[in-house]
């Protein structure tokens, strides 16, 4: 019995959410008094793989077959399930990223495992193996017991935090047979905006709504986000009107996020929007309507016109940063 964590790489590097998943998996391994093994698929240098030891992995399985250089969930699931069986791992952990969401269910079926996705806390240790996960689009949490022998957990980004736990790490090459039928999808192109912070795992988010009146007014939002090193987001009416891309829409039918700081500008706070952002650690609301429902769930608020407040906020932030 051991814990296996899948470490997703992008262009040979691991992101913070990966180190967070390793930290979380290490804490589970400690609960179970066992070791943590990581599995990496694709081209990753040994120096980068060794980084995983900082967060508690004592062994890294490195898979670098030619046909696995780019993400194919079907084939990756086969490799990870094979590694779990070989290592005798009964708990598989991964990050609940876009790719993780396509991967975890396939691993779960292969291992006949219960899957807790959107996990926000460590499993309980009261005899039952239960995981707290988000449900009802952030309006609630479901304590989900994984009753199967094997278990798969997909951790929400920014839910657990990165915890250093220096461990001697051994890197091993791992090979697994990949069926041709596992390679049915072919990636043609990957487009990444490298100058922007990715929204799902951002620690700070600046979001704006209809109160901004039009897409031409987003300059100050982007400036504020740039100064903070924050990602930008928006409300549903804004993405519906094509002022901003759908990928920025947070809320019940968009994406749910849990950053350390969420600044909402010109967003009234409809129940569907709040569902997607209510697990943010600190919420700041700027709205000219003192009756806006968003103020009821905010930590800090400014009642005022966004077009006056945001430029002043930018000045104050510049002064703060010196």
């Amino acid at each position, binding site marked *: 019995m051991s814990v296996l964590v899948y470490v997703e790489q992008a262009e040979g590097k691991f992101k913070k959410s990966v180190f967070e998943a390793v930290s979380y998996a290490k804490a589970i391994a400690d609960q179970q008094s066992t070791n943590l093994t990581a599995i990496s698929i694709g081209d990753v240098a040994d120096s980068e793989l060794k980084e995983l030891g900082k967060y508690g992995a004592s062994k890294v399985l490195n898979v670098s077959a030619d046909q696995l250089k780019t*993400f194919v969930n079907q084939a990756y699931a086969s490799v990870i399930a094979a590694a779990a069986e070989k290592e005798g791992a009964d708990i598989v952990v991964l990050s609940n990223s876009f790719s993780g969401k396509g991967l975890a*269910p396939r691993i779960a079926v292969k291992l006949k495992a219960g899957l807790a996705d959107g996990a926000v806390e460590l499993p309980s240790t009261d005899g039952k193996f239960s995981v707290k996960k988000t449900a009802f689009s952030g309006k609630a949490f479901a304590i989900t017991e*994984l009753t199967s022998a094997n278990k798969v957990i997909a951790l929400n980004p920014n839910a657990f935090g990165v915890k250093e736990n220096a461990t001697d790490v051994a890197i091993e090459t791992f090979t697994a047979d990949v069926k041709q039928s596992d390679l049915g999808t072919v990636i043609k192109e990957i487009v990444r905006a490298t100058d922007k912070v990715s929204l799902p795992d951002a620690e700070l988010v600046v979001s704006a709504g209809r109160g901004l009146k039009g897409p031409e007014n987003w300059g100050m939002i982007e400036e504020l986000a740039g100064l903070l090193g924050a990602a930008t987001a928006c409300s549903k009416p804004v993405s519906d009107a094509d002022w901003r891309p759908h990928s920025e829409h947070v809320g019940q039918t968009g994406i749910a996020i849990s950053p350390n700081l969420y600044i909402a500008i010109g967003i009234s706070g409809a129940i569907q929007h709040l569902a997607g952002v209510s697990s943010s650690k600190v919420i*700041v609301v700027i709205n000219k309507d003192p009756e806006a429902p968003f103020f009821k769930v905010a930590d*800090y608020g*400014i009642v005022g016109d966004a077009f006056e407040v945001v430029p002043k906020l930018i000045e104050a932030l510049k002064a703060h940063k010196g």
Partner: protein
Amino acid sequence: MKILVCISNVPDTTTKITFTNDNTEFNTSGVQYIVNPYDEIALSRAIELTEGGKGTVTVINVGEAGNDPTIRKALAIGADDAVRVNAAPRDAYFVAKQIAEYAKDKDFNIILTGRESIDYNGNQVAAMVGEFLDIPSISIIKKLDVDGDTATIEREIEGGKEVLTVSGKFIASCAEGVAEPKIPNMRGIMSARTKPLAVVDAVAIEEVTKVTKYETPAPRGTVKLIPADQTESLIGLLHSEAKVI
């Protein structure tokens, strides 16, 4: 082209979520149910792809008879026929197994779902069905075009997108961007009453998860209001009190 669209029956997005029986059950009292909004996007794209005699769209739901109005809504939007697997949807693993069992010998070219249901937010069913059927699954797609036997798909990734192709049968979960949700017209609503809705029995499968309790997010304290001309004190509080910048 034969397309199968999986639909969930979920509480309306404006629903205030509460629980009963010592927080072990969702309180369904007074709740309005709708077709899961993401499933509507999947259904709308399926209808676009098959319009003009190019194919048929079947919707499938795993649920009890109370779901029939929601299934009729999907028929009113434009699906040709429907099937309901008559069982309470225990978890995603159970639902995916039922859909895979139904689909395995029906020769659907494409199976679509929404990216997730807005109640349990599983995001699990599409990839699980893909695994049960041993066909490719693509999660959280933003665009779907079909040309003969090959589909071109855009999928969301952190900070960007991935463009991929898939040939032969596949399943995909649809997000915003795939299609504009269609609204049923009067003719659709009338014809939905007489379109076929088959009811089939569920197959047995082992239990792998069980929700034992629900929690609602902890309420926040009262908002601290800062005068509009004192933005510097907001920055100060975020730095020294909240410690987030």
